[in-house]
């Protein structure tokens, strides 16, 4: 058979082995998304079937041969109302359902572990809190919510994991975030879905969801020696941030210990919550967020720190809760906690503003 047309044969084989109508459901939100998707398929089928049924049956019943003289009809308010209200109702249901899902996907839970993602033409750089760097690959444990903090270094990109049904734009100059909880171990596609220039279609990679133990092993195996926070600490010293930000009483800059998660009142009267985005802004555009009691003397670091560097600084400042030295020794990477009760050091919100040790 195969000698007749090898191309056709291959094609058939491929079809039979690879054909699927649906991507794998590998995250907690995937079945929820698919439920809505199927609901919409269903109402679409109903709507479409009605349209087709009407057309076909009228075409048969009232074609010229059967029905030579048309009967003029103005319209019908009742019918008009029917096909206004039913689709409207169905669309509103999809709206509410969709919105719930949307807020779920874009609102990370407090105990999520944080992984940083930098997009640039044309690769994804991933920074784990434990200092593991990855390029075009992302390793995550299953059964734990993972929050991605994403930024782009140049143009728009979009971080997409179809098997998890999540996707978020990487925007230059701004953090965005998305979260997921992988459920099935396996290797999945990672795509850049926003058109970003020549090699847009090469900006792809793999997401590897692993059992917690495997993940722990992977973390240990691929550590770079320093945790991200330690990288940050080095930067903090080498950029001489500590010349001004230090625990000395006469320091020129505010003490940054425990600042993460607290509420700051700025000189302009605004109150802000210190989060990743604020820290980034405070480092790159210090003049826009002046703390009362301090002169606006902090220089801008725009263009001097790479986005990965900013991530490292942010991660460092996040953990700065007692002293300017981080309580970590080299080679001890941040490991995810197995039980919900004790969130990992990287976990967001693990430290409510009240507990801040000053």
């Amino acid at each position, binding site marked *: 058979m195969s000698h007749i047309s090898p191309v056709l044969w291959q094609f058939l084989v491929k079809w039979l082995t690879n054909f699927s109508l649906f991507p794998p459901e590998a995250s907690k939100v995937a079945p929820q998304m698919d439920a809505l998707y199927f609901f919409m398929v269903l109402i679409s089928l109903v709507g479409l079937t009605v349209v087709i049924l009407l057309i076909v049956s009228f075409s048969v019943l009232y074609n010229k041969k059967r029905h030579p003289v048309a009967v003029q009809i103005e319209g019908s308010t009742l019918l008009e109302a029917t096909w206004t209200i039913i689709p409207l109702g169905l669309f509103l249901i999809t709206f509410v359902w969709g919105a719930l899902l949307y807020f779920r996907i*874009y609102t990370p839970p407090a105990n999520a572990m944080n992984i940083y993602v930098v997009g640039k033409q044309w690769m994804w750089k991933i920074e784990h809190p434990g200092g593991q760097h990855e390029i075009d690959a992302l390793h995550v444990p299953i059964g734990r919510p993972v929050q991605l903090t994403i930024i782009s270094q140049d143009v728009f990109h979009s971080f997409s994991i179809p098997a998890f049904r999540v996707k978020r734009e990487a925007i230059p100059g701004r953090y*965005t*975030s998305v979260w997921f909880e992988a459920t099935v171990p396996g290797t999945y596609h990672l795509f850049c879905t926003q058109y970003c220039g020549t090699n847009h279609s090469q900006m792809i990679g793999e997401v590897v969801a692993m059992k917690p133990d495997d993940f722990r092993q992977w973390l240990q195996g691929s550590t770079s020696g320093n945790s991200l926070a330690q990288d940050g600490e080095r930067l903090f010293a080498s950029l001489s941030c500590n010349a001004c930000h230090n625990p000395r009483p006469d320091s020129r800059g505010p003490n940054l210990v425990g600042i993460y998660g607290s509420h700051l009142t700025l000189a302009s*009267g*605004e*109150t802000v*919550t210190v*989060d990743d985005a604020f820290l980034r802004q405070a480092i790159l555009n210090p003049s826009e967020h002046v703390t009362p009691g301090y002169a606006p003397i902090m220089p801008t670091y725009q263009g001097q720190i790479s986005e990965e560097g900013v991530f490292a600084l942010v991660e460092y400042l996040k953990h700065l809760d007692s002293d300017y030295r981080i309580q970590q020794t080299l080679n001890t990477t941040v490991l995810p906690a197995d039980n919900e009760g004790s969130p990992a050091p990287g976990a967001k919100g693990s430290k409510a503003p009240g507990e801040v040790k000053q």
Partner: protein
Amino acid sequence: MSEPNAHNEQGAEHEPHIVSPGTYAIILLVLLVATATTCGMSYIDLGEWHIAINLFGWHVGTTLFWNPVVALAIACTKMTLVVLFFMHIKYSSKLTKLTVISGFFIFLGLISMTLADYVSRAWGRW
């Protein structure tokens, strides 16, 4: 061969209303005074108004500076005068009036809905 009045919508306006020079002069005067006011006003600090709402832990707040608001209000008044009198809208057909209004409606839609996005970004953590 034509029946002028059979045409819809234009019957009303064969002879456009002629506004008298006196009216124009008054409008000119008002416009000049308004310009002077705008200019003078900008040297006075009209203060600001803090709007702050605290809803279930959300801090929704902005500060409204009166100077630009007043300046823009005056500009809008000036515009209205120019449109009504210099551009004869006061004496125009309903259709033209409606056209102008709907144009500004869409214009405001563009500005307000875009700004609404920027403003509300601060409300959440997105």
